[in-house]
């Protein structure tokens, strides 16, 4: 199994799920609006967005629990139109886990295998293997009702993986777990995906989860896909304010477009002055203005007489202590909104009194231009 997948992986970015112009409407409401997406073989792909953005609808259409109003979905080159869920090469981990309460762990995992009429030894071997993959060896005889949340989640995973699907779909699988267990499971899920090499499609509303686990992320809003890129690019080069905002804190500064050419933009701002930035691929100007963004952790406090090539000066108006970091709100003359600054506490940022005048250093690379 592993070998087969690995050999195929070398084929590179072969498309596993091809979503073309898919729309799903309920009356006049469009849960999904003309979405197109290619998910590669063997990648860990996340659909990220707030509730109601259409991510679950899309996942359920891949699984076969929902039907596109228009458009098509193909898995591994096979069109899925009219193929019911039970004949698709996909398996799903449900948000509620949907562990059959009248069966024990082993019977749950073997549920789908029964249809294949394997000989008893083979079935048992595969169940054992799946349980081992999710570290549940020895718990096969447990009743489903006696399991903890984390264990139920592992059973759901084993039950899907034992089918050796081409695609594993995960519908908010970690949302029911507490914070600590969730972080542990993120690492394990990622490790598991790399071990089995199956394409994973994860639906989540938790940006950290998506950033931590995925090869690529599609950020969705209001039934539309806003951006598809690697976690790093999504975080550092969001295509618009909505994406930037959803992926964590971002300072927004009004900017005027001075010059626009193929690869770069020159912007005039109050506070940051004239700035030259890379032009985002998806940048489409909307009038003469744009927005310049910078993440709070990309602004550094300049201590004493230290200087930097790029700096802004301002006054601390609020200070919030968060243990390993401190959050400063700094008013910059000329900026309509104060800047948020996240600084580690190694050098005493937690001791800066409110009212202090400080200077902030930044790297022009960290400035992102976004269309208004």
């Amino acid at each position, binding site marked *: 199994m592993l070998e087969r997948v690995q050999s195929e992986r070398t084929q590179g970015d072969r498309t596993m799920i091809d979503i073309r112009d898919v729309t799903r409407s309920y009356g006049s409401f469009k849960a999904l609006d003309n979405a197109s997406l290619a998910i590669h073989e063997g990648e860990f792909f996340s659909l990220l967005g707030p509730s109601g953005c259409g991510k679950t609808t899309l996942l359920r259409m891949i*699984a076969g629990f929902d039907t596109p109003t228009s458009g098509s979905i193909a898995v591994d080159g096979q069109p899925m139109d009219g193929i*019911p*869920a*039970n004949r698709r090469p996909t398996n*799903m981990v449900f948000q509620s886990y949907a562990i059959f*309460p009248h069966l024990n762990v082993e019977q749950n995992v073997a549920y*789908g295998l029964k*249809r294949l009429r394997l000989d008893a030894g083979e079935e048992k071997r595969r169940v054992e293997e799946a349980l081992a993959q999710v570290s549940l060896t020895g718990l096969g005889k447990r009743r489903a009702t006696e399991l903890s949340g984390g264990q139920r989640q592992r059973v759901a995973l084993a039950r*899907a993986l034992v089918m050796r699907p081409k695609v594993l779909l995960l519908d908010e699988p970690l949302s029911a777990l507490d914070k600590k267990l969730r972080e542990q499971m993120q690492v394990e899920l990622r490790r598991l995906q790399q071990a089995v090499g199956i394409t994973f499609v994860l639906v989540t509303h938790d940006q950290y989860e998506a950033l931590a686990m995925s090869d690529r992320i599609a950020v969705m809003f209001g039934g539309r896909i806003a951006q598809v890129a690697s976690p790093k690019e999504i975080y550092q080069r969001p295509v618009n304010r909505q994406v930037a905002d959803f992926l964590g804190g971002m300072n927004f500064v009004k900017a005027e477009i001075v010059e626009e050419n193929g690869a770069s933009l020159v912007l005039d701002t109050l506070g940051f002055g004239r700035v030259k930035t890379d032009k985002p691929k998806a940048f489409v100007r909307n009038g003469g203005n744009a927005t310049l963004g910078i993440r709070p952790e990309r602004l550094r406090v300049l201590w004493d007489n230290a200087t930097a090539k790029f700096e802004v000066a301002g006054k601390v108006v609020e200070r919030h202590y968060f243990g390993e970091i401190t959050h400063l709100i700094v008013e910059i003359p000329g900026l309509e909104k104060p800047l948020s600054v996240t600084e580690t506490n190694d050098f005493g940022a937690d001791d800066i009194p409110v009212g202090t005048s400080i200077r902030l250093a930044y790297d022009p690379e960290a400035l992102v231009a976004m269309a208004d």
Partner: protein
Amino acid sequence: MTAIKRFLPGWLPTYAGLYIVFLYLPVIFLPIFSINIAATPKFPLSGATLQWYEDLPRTPALIDATWNSLMVGVSASILSTVLGILAARSITRYRYPGRRTINGLIMAPLVLPEVIVAISMLLVMLQLGLSLSLFTVVLGHVLVCIPYSMTVLTSGFEGFDRSLEEASADLGESAFGTFRRVTLPMVAPAIISSLLVCFTISLDEFIIAFFLTGTEATLPIYIWGQLRFAAKLPGVLALGTLLLLASFVLMTVAEILRRRAARRTQSEGGLYA
């Protein structure tokens, strides 16, 4: 909880105890006087005997009535449970306009005076030229049993997580296979519970049977007929005691099963909701 605990007037537990006595006391007299030697139910008791019970199997009319009741009960419970399953499934799983109205209509016999339900059905059946028989009794019993069946089954179906069926389909199972391997085992206790509840109601039901039967008597009709004769009272008490016992056993089993079903589907409520 401490704030709530404070408002527990001292009389409340006592009152609760007395209330239970009030509920049970009248019913307790039936078994007591059914083993009393004297034919009139009065104190002091005149000694214990099983003679009234021994007489029961020697009464052909009673044997007939028992058979009639069993037949009516079995048919009515099966029919109303089948109709109850369809309706409860529809109500718990689908959303559609008029759902509440239809549900209200199906549940209505629960709150309508039985006499009026009975005479209305009688009128229609006579108009349709149906001759009154145990069959018409079954038709009537099904109507009054459906609401109870619905209540039991809805509590069994309600918490039923739809993703369980989706998970089954996702794992390759067909629609029929999903029904057989997931849905049925999950709701079986609720279905059996509904059968028992409906059987008990049919067994005990008097008014509708009284109006809709032809010449055949069910057990309650037999009892009603015997009540005119004071001398027959001890026999009626003995028969009544047996019926009470049957109801008690059936309902206890039904309740245990219903709870098991509710626990399986992780929902609460049922007869109490």
